[in-house]
């Protein structure tokens, strides 16, 4: 550390951290505290310490098995698709062709629509009676009569995944694109001199360079997928049966339907534990650790 650096550390960190810290530690501590309380707003006079009771109740609840299954299915389908497709999109958008600027803009368009609306339009497309999907399938002769897609288990899940893709692709694509833009051209030139084929160049340079970006994307998209509530609420409302009722759907019902803040917080903390395990796994898989890519 050189002289004057301390001053810069303060100047550099205070603006950001003064926004972040008040909204980080108190909320976490509060959530931890509430998760140990018997805290049911329907019976406000009975708020008392409950130890791990909330966690035990949540584990034994009627929805635990189903919602875990739904969440795992959704995340396992959605996350790899988002990562792969956004990487492909970013590669396309980093090429040099006429209209690429327009295409870069176009890819980000779905981001601009409020989530309620994007959910509503996908629900409407697949609506049993008035949906354009049914009409198209029927006029093509692929189905004989209208099918209530959202009442069928796997179609409903896939529709959720499609809507999630439509909504969530812009951010990862943009990140990968910015990452690709930062690759020094010398690396490619050097590889060219060494006679590398395009696939080898892609693997050795592009993918290696993008690895830390891939980590951010994987973590971000996974969190988004695990937390997905809005789309489920708008499109399937957890149905058919409980097939698409993901964990966050029950966290919300515990909180805002049953007003049981204790159980909702406990459930949220279980989600956090799973997320942390997942993130550690990503760090391992992508072997980023604390490597600094200094050239």
């Amino acid at each position: 550390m050189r002289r004057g650096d301390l001053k810069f550390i303060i100047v550099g960190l205070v603006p950001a951290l003064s926004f972040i810290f008040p909204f980080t530690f108190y909320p976490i501590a509060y959530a931890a505290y509430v998760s140990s309380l018997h805290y049911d707003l329907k019976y406000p006079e009975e708020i008392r310490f409950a130890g791990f009771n909330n966690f035990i109740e949540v584990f034994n609840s009627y929805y635990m098995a189903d919602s875990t299954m739904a969440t795992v299915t959704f995340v396992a389908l959605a996350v790899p698709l988002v990562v792969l497709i956004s990487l492909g999109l970013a590669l396309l958008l980093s090429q040099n062709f006429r209209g690429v600027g327009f295409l870069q803009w176009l890819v980000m368009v779905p981001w601009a629509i409020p989530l309620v609306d994007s959910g509503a339009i996908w629900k409407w497309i697949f609506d049993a009676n008035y949906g354009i999907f049914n009409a198209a399938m029927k006029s093509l002769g692929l189905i004989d009569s209208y099918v209530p897609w959202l009442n069928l288990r796997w179609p409903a899940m896939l529709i959720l995944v499609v809507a999630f893709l439509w909504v969530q692709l812009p951010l990862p694509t943009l990140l990968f694109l910015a990452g690709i833009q930062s690759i020094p051209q010398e690396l490619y030139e050097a590889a060219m001199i060494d006679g590398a084929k395009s696939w080898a160049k892609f693997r050795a340079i592009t993918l290696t360079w993008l690895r830390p970006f891939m980590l951010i994307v994987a973590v971000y998209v996974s969190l988004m997928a695990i937390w997905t509530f809005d789309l489920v609420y708008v499109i399937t409302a957890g149905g058919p049966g409980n097939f698409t009722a993901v964990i966050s759907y029950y966290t919300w019902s515990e909180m805002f339907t049953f007003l049981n803040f204790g159980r909702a917080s406990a459930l949220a903390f279980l989600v956090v534990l799973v997320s942390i395990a997942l993130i550690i796994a990503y760090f391992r898989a992508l072997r980023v650790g604390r490597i600094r890519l200094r050239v």
Partner: protein
Amino acid sequence: MVNGYKAVIVISSIIVGIWVLFPIAWMFSISLQTEPEIHSAPPTLWPKNPNIFNYWFIFDASSAIEARLQESGRLSFLPAVARWFPNALANSVIIGLVITGINILAATLASYTFTRIRFRGSGLLFYMSVAGRLIPPVAIVVPYYIIIQNFFGFNLLDTLLAVILVHAAFTLPINIWILNTYLSAIPSDIEDAARVDGYGRLETLFKVVLPVIKPGIVAIGIISFMVSWGEFFFAFMVTQTQLSRTLPVIVGFMAAQPYKPVGILMAGGLVSMLPALVVIAVFRRYLLRGLVAGAVR
């Protein structure tokens, strides 16, 4: 070879275009239909008499209702909350721009400090600033409400400032992480050279580093604006009236009506898209390859 490359580009561009535009085109068609037309099977691909009532309604609810009454004497159930749509549009734009400014400034400073200055606890501080984003929003929204209700003695509920604070806390961690990644990948040689030439830290940051990380900064600028633009839940919790409600909140209210006016909902979605699209278009111009290649040489 070259032709194959071209074909791949053209075909994938077309697929991307259809993928993005089809739902939007369908929204547009629905927004020009009347409710009976929307609720008909088979669906009306394009209305025979495109009707702008839905747009009229979200921009000037009372005069649209009056005109409709004189015309037909009948009125279906309409969401009254739509009358605050123009306010919400303005609120969202203001909040989004402020959030973008805060993020570009604060995240750049912070990630420069994290990646370029070695000091005790730098790693810990970094993880501490990112960690808050691991908690599902639903678990921390109540404490957020409590903080905003009594922010150093001020009740900020239902102010634009409240939404700005919450969104800044929400967007900064991921943006710092992104810029950290970006900066770590860029060799610090030129900066060291600049420092040897007698540049201070701030000067180095603004004159040497900024031009190099331009694509990264543009990316976090877009991300900040868009995340704030679409964020519903926190904005919903800390706002109470049209003074501070943002677009997603108003649109959410419109969708939460017992009888859902699909046409108005779609019109609202399309209109709320427009300002954000302008912002993306403005920012995207700078998303071109920065000076990385030239500067490293």
